[in-house]
């Protein structure tokens, strides 16, 4: 069964602020979120747009780098920019973010250097950045085993509760957690258990599901025949379905959900309806499983075009868009240059962090490898 975008697109319960052409046209469900949207200064609106364009350029660059053999793999965020920008911009500085593995936009917004994501996909690291370094905005590293990170997020949220780092009534200080996962991952048992724990410990947590309609070649209809947003209700979590290609709606629902969660009202679930406009990864061939009709349907709902339409209607100058495009190109170019400069790894490094404390077997093998490699050097000498 192919994805049925039309059915979802006309879901009356969907929170949407902008029509596909960018016209302000809030759905009934969007009413309560409008004050949040209206409070956004123009500079912030421009930031949203700039984020999306910039990271799309980066994403395209990374795809090219993979094609040139520079990366092992690239999972494009192409098409999901609005859901990611909206939700990431909705977080506050003190929040913790647990991405899955396609949240390039989220990560870079929070301060992660895109080269760290590149290093991961190049095969230079399994991590890439330091979540404890303030410059990375409490962004945790990627998790490739689908759904696992949802439990880490619930546990982190439990820690916030136990430490009284949340629920004091001060939104500027109260902390919250947001965890990202996909429509495919939603079927994993871990996601269920993460919701059970979150509800049981009343964590200040938002489960942010990007329903991009596909799990590689499998349509979301295989994972669920009713909107996935309904899952959250089963745990007593208020749950919202948002048009994930509408950056303003995505921002507003996430902002409110996070603020409610941090105020002590407990976990929330958001399903952001979006679309993976590109391949699953650079190894994938979507023509095997989806129609060009479907791709066209979604191309007409491109999140960047929509926001551009909105800004244009608000009177943004053509020069603004040109500037953003230029900045984005420079950003992507910088990534390309730095990718080419990436060095290699010292084999010894694979032993360094297997444990935090010295481990005799590992030390012995480390020594063995060093001696072994030295023996070749000698041979050559």
């Amino acid at each position, binding site marked *: 069964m192919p994805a049925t975008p039309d059915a979802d697109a006309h879901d009356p319960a969907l929170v949407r602020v902008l029509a596909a052409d960018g016209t302000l046209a809030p759905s009934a469900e969007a009413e309560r979120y409008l004050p949040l949207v209206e409070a956004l200064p123009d500079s912030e609106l421009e930031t949203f747009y700039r984020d999306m364009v910039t990271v799309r350029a980066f994403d395209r660059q990374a795809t090219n780098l993979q094609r040139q053999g520079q990366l092992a*793999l690239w999972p494009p965020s192409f098409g999901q920019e609005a859901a990611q920008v909206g939700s990431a911009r909705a977080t506050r500085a003190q929040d913790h973010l647990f991405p899955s593995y396609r949240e390039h936009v989220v990560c870079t917004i929070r301060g992660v250097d895109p080269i760290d994501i590149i290093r991961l996909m190049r095969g230079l*690291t399994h991590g890439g950045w330091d979540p404890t370094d303030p410059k990375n905005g409490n962004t945790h590293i990627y998790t490739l085993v689908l759904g696992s990170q949802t439990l880490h997020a619930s546990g982190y949220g439990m820690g916030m509760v136990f430490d009284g780092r949340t629920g004091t009534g001060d939104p500027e200080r109260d902390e919250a957690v947001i965890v990202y996962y996909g429509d495919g991952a939603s079927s994993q048992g871990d996601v269920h258990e993460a919701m059970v724990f979150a509800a049981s410990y009343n964590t200040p947590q938002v489960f942010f599901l990007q329903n991009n309609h596909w799990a590689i*070649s499998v349509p979301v209809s295989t994972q669920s025949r009713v909107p996935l947003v309904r899952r959250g209700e089963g745990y007593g979590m208020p749950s919202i379905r948002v048009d994930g290609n509408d950056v303003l709606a995505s921002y507003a629902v996430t902002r409110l959900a996070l603020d409610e969660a941090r105020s002590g009202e407990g976990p929330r679930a958001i399903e952001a309806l979006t679309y993976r406009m590109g391949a699953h990864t650079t190894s994938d061939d979507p023509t*095997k499983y989806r129609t060009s009709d479907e791709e066209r349907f979604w191309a007409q709902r491109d999140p960047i075009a929509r926001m551009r339409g909105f800004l244009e209607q608000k009177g943004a100058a053509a020069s603004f868009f040109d500037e953003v495009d230029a900045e984005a190109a420079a950003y992507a170019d910088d990534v390309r240059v730095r990718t080419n400069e990436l060095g290699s790894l010292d084999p010894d490094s694979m032993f360094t962090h297997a444990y935090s404390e010295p481990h005799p077997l590992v030390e012995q*093998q480390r020594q063995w490898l060093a001696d072994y490699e030295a023996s070749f050097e000698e041979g050559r000498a």
Partner: protein
Amino acid sequence: MSIDSADTATGVQTLPFSKALNAGLRAAMANDDRVLLMGEDIGRLGGVFRVTEGLQAEFGERRVLDTPLAESGIVGTAIGLAMAGYRPVCEIQFDGFVFPAFDQITSQLAKLTNRHEGRMSFPVVIRIPYGGHIGAVEHHQESPEAYFTHTPGLRVVSPSTPNDAYWMIQDAVASPDPVIFLEPKSRYWPKGEVDPSARALPLHASRVVRRGTDVTLVGHGAMVTVLLQAAALAESEGISCEVVDLRSLSPIDYAPIVDSVRRTGRMVYGQEAPGFTSLGSEVAATVTEQAFFSLEAPVLRVSGFDVPFPAAKLEGAYLPDADRILEAVDRALAY
């Protein structure tokens, strides 16, 4: 049906391992309409390695299921389907994604025949592409065989050639017991001869793939290729290696190995998996027990290091190659 399908041919064909497997699966499905394939992306896409390509088109959506994305669900429902008389063949997309299904495999699938006192059998095959050499990200390069070989109630096999892939998958499907079927993913592409007219060996037999007199090299899956490379290099140095392909990891057919070691007096075991508490430990301990007086040197093991599989750029340093095998051969000979 594609014209090069092996099952319709009578003569020997040259096929890549992945296509040989595909042909074996097709033959198994054609022979028994209770055989079902289930997994993530195996239907319309034909699997991320294209092993099941064309099979959904040929046998329909009821025989080749694109399941929801949940490994415990895949194995757990396969168990229920087996109870209903099916012979499910589950695909786990990559080695590192089998662990969410570990409880269903270890505490259920492996034990259910015993729990039912033989009144039901559980002919479920779990196919797992495994091993390194493909430069992939975390969880995509691991060799989890020890977890399964330690679990009573499972059978564990791993073909290393297209012909074995073709036949062993059919034998695994025909087995009334659960079979963990490990596919060395770096071997998917190289071609080899497939003879659809007759199976060469039983499912659980090991095979001497090269004769030699000085040292016995033993391994499975992609490691067999490395052992053969090492043997060729050793020959140029005047050392004669016998090479045994385990094929079946549980049970192990020890006779050819012990036989060989009785002649050579020396053995090196090669594996990609970390060495500690590994299949190599088992083979070393048992061969030592069975050929104690013939051994001139302890059985040496060459393994992945006992650290998490490193980032792809280091797989070359992590995975045993022919040089590391030779280093062990030299050490064994130095005793």
